[in-house]
């Protein structure tokens, strides 16, 4: 058996779009096979076909050489195919165990035998080094742990062929490294893996072969070891891409934001930010590096006014904004690209034009005497989508919900940058986006810096932090444990600081 999975000439259409057009994918047993493509290239669709969520219009699927008809996920499960979805499919208020056994519950006289299930899961997690607490509730655990739950779901069902759809988008560097390790171990145990990702580095690191698709079409299947990152990238986007973020040296000016002894509690009432001090100047990008859950979210929310400050002081342009209402902060000079674009960034049921004035709708010329001025709104919206290359079906009249994630993000950036705020907060601005979009967003952040704004960048991706920032502050347990010049920072040094060792100590270590 040469191939464990063969998807031959698959075609899948959605109203108005051919998501998969004659795509072929052949996976060898025991390999990690990467599936690479831009946003919207059709990767998730192809995998959904394999997993039985969609029915293809044409093409055939063979599993272990036998032609199969995968009509629903049950069939896929039975064939030993498991999938970790791009957006986790976990029930937020169920325990880890409940999520894993759902649909295949071990019972004892009609009652779920939860103890046995938990024990099985514990054993399974030890076998593969996937540490989880079987009784923890999903919403209380980290994203990384949620992902382990997703993987355990597959293993619990004895999946042989594991599909990972963009598994690293939401993970911290440590978690990514762990995941890579896990994948290798899985392959050693005899599993085969299909890995979907935008991140070339990850492909280079773990994948054996890589299939590239572009705009729904099959491009090529290559051996990863013998193909350079540059080559992969150009196959993916169809042109040359540069990875270096082009920027001049920062010319920092006056202070814009000063945070002193800040204490902020998280939703559970624990001190998430605990005596934090930080300063940012005009004309520089300050990156905050740190493992997820060390107070980044709470810090951003405190600065932008979405969360109450317990103690300490925040000054913007010399003004105390500690207890100011969101609206006043915005007007004083904050632009905010929120981490969660669907929750905070957009009103998905508004038209694009309406979302583009979300911060300014009450001001002239968009509003006059309490009335909306459509002409002015539309004009502005058109100007922004042209300038920021926001693409969508019906232009400014598109329902925002119907737009792709990358374009939604561009719309938010357009709106926030356009107000020329003294301080631009960017919370994970490129999460889940493809290289093209990432490139664009980085360019915009640097442009803003060069215009003399202070940019506060929070990202879980160390590469992004190191490439874009001028200075890097490392956050650990709600405190800034050290600040380093980006140019001089090394990944190893930052990694150690993120793990809690202080600047000094780290120097000593070296």
């Amino acid at each position, binding site marked *: 058996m040469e191939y464990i999975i063969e998807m031959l000439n698959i075609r899948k259409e959605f109203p108005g779009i051919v998501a998969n057009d004659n795509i072929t994918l052949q996976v060898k047993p025991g390999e990690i096979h990467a599936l690479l493509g831009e946003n919207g290239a059709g990767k998730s669709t192809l995998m959904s076909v394999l997993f039985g969520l969609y029915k293809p219009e044409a093409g055939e699927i063979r599993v272990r050489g036998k032609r199969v008809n995968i009509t629903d996920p049950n069939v896929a499960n039975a064939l030993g195919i498991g999938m970790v979805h791009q957006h986790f499919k976990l029930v937020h208020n169920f325990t880890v165990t409940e999520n894993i056994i759902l649909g295949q519950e071990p019972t004892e006289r009609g009652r779920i035998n939860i103890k046995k299930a938990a024990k099985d899961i514990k054993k399974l997690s030890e076998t593969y080094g996937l540490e989880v607490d079987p009784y923890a509730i999903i919403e209380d655990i980290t994203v990384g742990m949620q992902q382990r739950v997703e993987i355990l779901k597959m293993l619990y069902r004895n999946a042989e062929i594991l599909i990972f759809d963009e598994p690293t988008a939401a993970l911290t560097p440590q978690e990514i490294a762990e995941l890579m390790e896990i994948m290798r171990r899985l392959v050693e145990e005899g599993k085969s893996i299909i890995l979907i990702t935008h991140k070339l580095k990850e492909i280079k690191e773990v994948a054996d072969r890589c299939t590239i698709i572009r705009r729904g079409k099959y491009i090529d299947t290559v051996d990863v070891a013998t193909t350079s990152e540059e080559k992969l990238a150009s196959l993916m986007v169809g042109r040359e891409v540069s990875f270096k973020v082009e920027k001049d040296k920062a010319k920092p000016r006056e202070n814009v934001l000063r945070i002193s002894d800040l204490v902020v509690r998280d939703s559970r009432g624990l001190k998430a930010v605990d005596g934090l001090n930080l300063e940012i100047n005009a004309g520089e990008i300050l990156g905050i590096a740190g493992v997820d859950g060390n107070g980044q979210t709470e810090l951003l929310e405190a600065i*932008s*006014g*979405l969360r109450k400050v317990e103690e300490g002081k925040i000054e913007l342009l010399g003004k105390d904004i500690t207890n100011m*209402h*969101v*609206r*006043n*902060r*915005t007007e004083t000079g904050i632009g*905010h690209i*929120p981490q969660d674009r669907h*929750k*905070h*960034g*957009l*009103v*998905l*049921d*508004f038209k694009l034009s*309406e979302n583009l004035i*979300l*911060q300014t*709708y*009450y001001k002239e010329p968009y*509003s006059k005497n*309490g*009335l*909306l001025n459509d002409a002015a709104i539309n004009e502005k919206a058109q100007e922004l989508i042209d300038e920021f290359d926001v693409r969508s079906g019906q232009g400014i009249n598109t329902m925002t919900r119907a737009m792709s994630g990358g374009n939604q993000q561009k719309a938010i950036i357009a709106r926030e940058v356009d107000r020329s705020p003294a301080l631009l907060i960017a919370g994970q601005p490129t999460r889940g986006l493809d290289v093209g979009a990432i490139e664009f967003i980085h360019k915009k952040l640097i442009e803003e810096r060069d215009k003399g704004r202070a940019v506060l960048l929070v990202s879980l991706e160390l590469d992004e932090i190191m490439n874009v920032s001028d200075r890097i502050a490392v956050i650990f347990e709600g405190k800034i444990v050290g600040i380093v010049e980006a140019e001089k920072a090394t990944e190893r040094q930052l990694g150690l600081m993120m793990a809690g060792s202080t600047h000094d100590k780290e120097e000593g270590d070296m």
Partner: protein
Amino acid sequence: MLKFITDEKNQRFIVPLVSVFLGFIAGAIIMMITGINPIEGYRALIKGVVGNPRRFGEWIVASTPLILSGLAIAFGLRTGVFNIGVEGQLIAGSFAAAAVGILIELPRFIHLPMVMLAAAIAGALWGLIPGFLKAKFKVHEVVVGIMLNYTALHLVNYAIKILPGSTNTKTVDIFESANLSSKFLSSITKHSRLHWGFIIAFLGALIFWYIIERTTFGYELRSVGFNPHASEYAGMKVERNIVYSMMISGAFAGLAGAMISVGTFNYARVIGGFEGYGLDGIAVALLGNNGGLGILISGFLFGALKAGSSAMALAKVPKEIAEIIMAFIVLFAAMNYGIKRLILYLRKEEK
């Protein structure tokens, strides 16, 4: 014709129209199954609505409160609250209008606006309670709304009795200067009770559309309704806006109540149970697509069914048939996905 029906642009009103059509077909089928001639039934209905000028006037009278309660429900739905408390707010508004109409006498041009204002304020205040509790304590507005409906019913029954001159069943008549009735309207419709309230319903629909679609305030309310988190992020006062939504919705409900006390009756009555205007409002709002114009039209449609059902009963069709037809119309409106699929299918055939 087929082209018109299948045109994407026209779906917004084709779907409701098809629902109405299918609703009447379903009503006809029920009549047939139960041995009643539907043609006779519908002839009676039409006669009952436009058979003579008086009936025409009564049709409008019946539609007026429905339109306003539809607007009340729709305002809530458009701004993210489910105001099931319209019934109670309507009762409160109905009482307040009557009270102001009874307790003071003023020139009509001041008195009448005062009466309307009182009704709107009473409805708004009764709406404020669930709004405030939702905003402040995260208590579900549906439960509070249901509870406050009963509370309004009983407290208003009590309040009516303590107004000067009231009997245990109703208040005295409202001063001439405070009621909406019009000799002129009544005379052109052959003594119907047609009153100026329909103007208020039209104005209500216009104001509704204007607030929701045209004003900055409406933009904020819709934003909060769709996504409170993003609205907070954008610097809006989410809690305050929830309260405003409920209050404005309640104000529409209060006006609907005024239509009944100072329009239809000219006095306030002790009632033994709900008269269902609030629930009818849900149907009106839903069929009207939660839009000002749509609600006007669906309000008149349901008003026709109500006003005409007595005439149907005269033709020996149980009057409940009107309610059944209403139910089917709402059901078909709910099926708009199915209807759209049907239209899509028609479109394919066409090609």
